[in-house]
């Protein structure tokens, strides 16, 4: 992460803390990307499920609860899926917001650290 040309720029405790914070934010950023991917897939599955539901003409649908498939009347399944879609969308929104905040914080830190260390520090993705 750091290459120096033998320069003598001093690293203060504050610098170290900034570097640590950047590392932490970067890790959280990658975790968030994973979580957002999973949330999007989940959303899609729910969409597909509710579309299938509209097409089907059965009155009783096998709805997965835990490890088993319970026989549930169609209307109840519809409302359950709507509920699940709401929860997933809200979750996705929250994750996207957190991601944006992290990207902004990382940009700030990059400015500060590059400002002090210029070429002696590398904060880009490998």
């Amino acid at each position, binding site marked *: *992460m*750091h*290459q*120096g*040309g*033998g*320069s*003598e720029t*001093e*690293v*203060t*405790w504050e610098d*170290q803390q900034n*570097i*640590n914070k950047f*590392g*932490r934010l970067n*890790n959280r950023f990658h975790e968030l990307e994973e979580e957002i991917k999973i949330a999007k897939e989940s959303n899609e599955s729910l969409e597909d499920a509710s579309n299938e539901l509209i097409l089907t003409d059965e009155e009783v649908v*096998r709805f997965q*609860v*835990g*490890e*088993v*498939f*319970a*026989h549930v009347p169609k209307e109840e399944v519809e409302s359950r899926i709507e509920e699940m879609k709401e929860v997933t969308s809200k979750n996705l929104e929250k994750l996207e917001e957190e991601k944006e905040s992290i990207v902004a914080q990382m940009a700030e830190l990059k400015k500060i650290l590059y400002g002090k260390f210029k070429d002696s520090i590398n904060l880009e993705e490998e």
Partner: protein
Amino acid sequence: MASPSPSSSSSSMVTERRGIPGAQFVEDVQTYLTQLGLDVNSALAFLQERLQQYKLVEMKLLAQQRDLQAKIPDIEKCLDVVATLQAKKGTGEALTTDFEVSEGIYSRACIEDSDSVCLWLGANVMLEYSCEEATALLQKNLDNAKASLEVLVADLQFLRDQVTITQVTIARVYNWDVHQRRIQQAAATTKDS
């Protein structure tokens, strides 16, 4: 659990957290090397070894985190099922479900109104609980798992910070050494000329 370090070379730093040693922040490389009483190569070797130890602990913590992250959805699924059974209780209808007997093979079960459920506690033990007790127990397990996960995540963050500090210290010691050699070389050339 964590206490501020009274050592001279760092301010408001944690010495260790739950068994993970804190990395000492170096204010000045020269002072650090004199304090350790080591030459540059030994110091670098020591720091590298510390880094390896941190990596080992990180792998262990990551494995624990994966386990917990798998456990939590399981408990939530169980809570779901118990809630479904409780909901059916009032109506007097039987709950028909299809369940997996073996891979790809399903069978139908008709679950009558019931006041109790059996919970698998592990170690080949299964206990019967009333629906309310089962919900309470599962909820408690879920809360514990989530709390453990939070502590684990904080541990990992602390660990990663110590890794970063150690990596920066290694780079600085190395750069200091290169700088020293350059100065010595420059001094030697001026002497000769």
